[in-house]
Each structure stands twice: as structure tokens, then as C-alpha cells.
């Protein structure tokens, strides 16, 4: 395979590593980065799609298996008699499908999509592990009506399962629809379970407990093909670009939704991959995702005008009143 390994890349880009704060992969240094948010943009992963084969021949992809094993104690245990989302006659319950691994569910936080894409007369069979992209400016966390989602200094986006009401707004504003809801669990049961809330949202947390200690996420360390790299974000970004250049391929996750902590490098364009995903309709797409916060932030800047307008208008009005005019 005309591919470079992460080790080769690191050797070749010692200068780049120096620029990124001497961030050569090493647990000790990674710990420093995790402890000091000012030291960098946090951590990131890179999926090399030329290496991932979806663990063909094995019962299930190893990243999926490792994720399930690592998080098994954190999966929801709903009450038996789950109330409907009144006045609707339905609720979201995945507890009977805990073994499902071919899509995201509250019990499966990563899965692998399979697509076949043609390029220059050659067929590329790609396996694409999917999970939360851990965006730089995550609309899910920023738009949570209860402010119970956090973007950590390590780069992960976390849901506080203790206070999530399960409205699923985060899933709706996520360009990839990642978070998944389980009804019959969570704080909403203690408030007004029939009238408000819908459960708790679940998704990949980037193995926050591990990465905050300078360790790798479970999916990274379990990959038998070395297809998932992990490290400081600047380094992963540089690696993704370098890898894409070497294979004359493409990078996804750098600009999408305003930037993420997850990079994909593919030998075929993500536009072509996305058309296939759209056609197949099996989960998150790989489209040119726009961050919904961008449209709001323009209005946010305009808000600075408001106090000035009020001040000027009041000045004129009070002057006129003092002069005896209405």
C-alpha cells in the first residue's frame, strides 16, 4: 500500500511537531496537554480509510466491540413501564435492541458504514467508522436548552446523563444526527414524565476518562489495522493533510461544521462517498455540513448595535422633552 504510517509521518514532520508545542506522541506530554487547555486545541483522531477494512472476518469491528465493552456499565437501564410522549402515542426505546451494532443507538456509540465507490475505473470498498465528530463549536452543546453538554479542553463533547431531559434537540441540530435517545431513564421521570422530556441522550464521549489521563480512546487502541490515530489536534490535522497528499486523497472533518476533532482520510472524494451514503440511507452522511450557529453569530454581533441605538434615541428624546417638546 502506497501509504505512510503514523510513525513515518512523525519522523518526517519533526518541524511540524515543534510548531505544535513539541507535541510528539507520548503519554506524558499528552497528559500535559490535557491538563493545560492553553497548550493546544485539544486532542483528535484520524481515521485512515485506506487501512480500515471493517475488521472483515471478525464477528464485529473491533472498535465497535471495544466501545461496547468499555461503556457497558454506562448504558441506560430504563424502567419497565415507559410512558409515552403525551399527547403522542410513542416513545423511543432501544433497550430491546442492545446487540444492534450496524447503527448508532443508546447502546452502540460507534459503528462502521460500508460503501463502494468507483474512481478512475477502480472500485474502492470503504469501511467508515462513525461516531460523534467532537466539533470545535458544537451546536449540540451550545444549543442545549438546559446547558448540560460540555466541550472539554481535551476536545470531547459530553452529555451530562444526570441532567439531560432527552428532548433530542442535540440530535436535531447535529449535522450528522449523532446523539441517540433512550426513554424511561433520567431526570425527566422525576419532573413530569408524561408532559415533558423524553429520556436521556447517549453518544461517544471520546473516552473522556481515558484521554484526560493521557491514554488513548478504546476504539483507537483496539484497531488491529492501526487505522485510527490519536494525538494533539494540530498534529492529527497535519498528519491528515500529509496522508491525503501522499495518496492524492481527501480529508473530511477539518472544515465541516466549522471544524471537528475527527479527521477522515480517503482515496476517493467525500462528495462521492456522501452520494452513496445518501443513496443507502444508512446513518450519518459525509456532506458539507454547515454549523447552524454561524447564522446566529452574525445576529449576535448585530446585537451590539442595540444598546447604542437605545442610548442615542433616549438622548434625543430626553433632550426634546427637556425643551418642552413631546
Amino acid at each position, binding site marked *: 500500500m502506497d501509504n505512510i504510517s503514523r510513525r513515518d509521518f512523525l519522523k518526517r514532520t519533526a518541524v511540524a511537531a515543534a510548531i505544535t508545542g513539541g507535541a510528539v506522541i507520548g503519554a506524558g506530554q499528552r497528559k500535559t496537554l490535557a491538563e493545560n487547555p492553553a497548550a493546544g486545541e485539544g486532542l483528535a483522531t484520524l481515521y485512515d480509510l485506506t487501512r480500515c477494512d471493517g475488521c472483515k472476518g471478525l464477528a464485529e469491528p473491533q472498535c465497535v466491540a471495544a466501545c461496547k465493552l468499555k461503556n457497558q456499565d454506562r448504558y441506560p437501564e430504563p424502567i419497565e413501564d415507559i410512558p409515552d410522549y403525551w399527547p403522542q402515542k410513542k416513545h423511543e426505546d432501544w433497550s430491546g435492541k442492545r446487540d444492534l451494532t450496524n447503527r448508532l443507538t443508546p447502546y452502540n456509540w460507534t459503528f462502521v458504514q460500508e460503501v463502494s465507490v468507483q474512481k478512475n475505473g477502480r472500485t474502492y470498498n470503504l469501511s467508515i467508522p462513525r461516531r460523534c465528530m467532537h466539533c470545535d463549536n458544537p451546536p449540540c452543546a*451550545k*444549543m442545549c*436548552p438546559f446547558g448540560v453538554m460540555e466541550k472539554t479542553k481535551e476536545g470531547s463533547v459530553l452529555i451530562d446523563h444526570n441532567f439531560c431531559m432527552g428532548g433530542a434537540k442535540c440530535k436535531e441540530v447535529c449535522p450528522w444526527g449523532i446523539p441517540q435517545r433512550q426513554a424511561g431513564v433520567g431526570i425527566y421521570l422525576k419532573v413530569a414524565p408524561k408532559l*415533558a422530556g423524553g429520556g436521556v441522550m447517549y453518544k461517544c464521549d471520546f473516552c473522556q476518562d481515558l484521554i484526560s489521563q493521557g491514554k488513548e480512546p478504546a476504539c483507537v487502541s483496539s484497531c488491529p489495522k492501526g487505522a485510527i490515530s490519536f494525538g494533539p489536534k494540530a498534529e492529527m490535522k497535519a498528519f491528515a493533510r500529509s496522508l491525503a497528499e501522499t495518496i492524492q486523497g481527501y480529508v473530511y472533518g477539518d472544515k465541516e461544521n466549522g471544524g471537528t476533532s475527527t479527521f477522515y482520510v480517503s482515496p476517493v472524494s467525500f462528495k462521492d462517498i456522501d452520494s452513496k451514503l445518501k443513496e443507502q440511507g444508512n446513518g450519518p452522511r459525509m456532506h458539507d455540513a454547515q454549523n447552524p450557529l454561524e*447564522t446566529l453569530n452574525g445576529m449576535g454581533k448585530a446585537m451590539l448595535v*442595540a444598546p447604542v441605538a437605545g442610548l442615542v434615541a433616549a438622548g434625543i428624546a430626553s433632550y426634546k422633552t427637556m425643551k418642552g417638546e413631546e
Partner: protein
Amino acid sequence: MAERIIEKEKKVKRHSLSVIIVHWTVALSTFLLFFSGFGQMPIYRRYGLVNVPGFAWADNFVINSQIHYAAALVLIAAVVYHIVFHVSLKQFDIMPRKGDVKESLLIIKAMLGMGKEPPSDKYLAEQRLAYLFIALNLLVLIITGIIKVYKNFSLVDVNYTFVTWVTALHNIATFLLLFGIAAHLAAFIFKANRPLIRGMFTGKVDLEYVKHRHSIWYEKLLQTKKQDKSM
């Protein structure tokens, strides 16, 4: 001076045009903020508002956020205007005074037919208290809202715990304001308060109503009238 007795019409000029415009601007923007604010939660689809003709967009979080931002811009402008305008003219009639809680109880008792109502100034004691309650909640909502807008920018790092508390405060103040506005509107259940409604549309209230209920204010208006004549 906007306030004056208009003998010919048997009315009293109670509010200037400026006050009327600010009142209704705050009312309209606050209504839009309530609607779009509640629309930040997924209730309009769940409860079927999206099925009402003209409201198919109501479950769109981005549209609701855009309405929320636009209405907040208008509210902030109106609140800044209100504060600067009245402070520069030293108009503090609506600020609560010592003894207002006790006086409010007496007024409410009187409206229920128990006891005699104490004479009032331009505003009733409970109006002054309601103003403070609504104003404080609006200020909390504006300050927490500005923080929430600020944290939405990329490259901005606002402490998570702080954001959680700010969000909780914003949500609590929303419900308190809703209660305050409900109480403000419920005041008009009492017939005695209804002559004031006209005042917020036309700026004028009946002279007889002022003489009877706002006698302290009426005396002040008479004094002002005398002074104006002697000048």
C-alpha cells in the same frame, strides 16, 4: 412636561408617547422572546403546534433562535432607552418606596371590599412593586442572555459550570417573568384598575379617576399647574 390636567377633556395626560412606545415595544419583544424561547425546547412538534396552519416552521430550532436574537436586540434597545430616558429626566415615580408592601395589601383589601383604599401617587404601590419585579427579571434575562449569545461564538471558551448556572438562571427568570406578567394582566380582573388600560393606549386617563384614586398625584399636578401659571 408630559403629565398635565386637561380640563377641557376631563382627562389627565399620564404617559408620554415615548412611554407608550417603550411599553408596547417591550411587551411585543417579550412575547416573541417567550414564544421563541419555549421553542428552544422540542414542544411545538410534540404538542402539535406545527400542524396549525402557518406554524409548520415552529419546530425549527434555528428559526426560533433567529427570532429570539432579533427580539432580544429590540428588547435591549428599548430597555437601554427606558433607563437612560427616565434617569436623565429624573423620573423615578415608578420606583418602589418604603411601605409599598403594606400599602399594596391595603389596596388589594380595598378592592375586595374590605377597608378604605389609601391615597395613591401616580402609580399604585403594587404597580411600583410589580415594575421592580418585572424589571429585575428582565435584567437577569438580558444579562444571562448576552452570556448565552457570547458563548455561541466559536473560539470562545466559557466555563461549563458557569454556562450551566447561567442557563438555569435564564430559565428560572423566564418563569418568574411569566408569573409577573400574568399578575400584571390579572390586575385588570379588578374593575378598579381598568381605567388605567386606556392610559397605556392613549396616554390619558379620566380626571375623575385620578381625583378619586391618585389624589397625591392629583395634588402634585395642581401644584405644577399653579407654578406654570405664575411663571
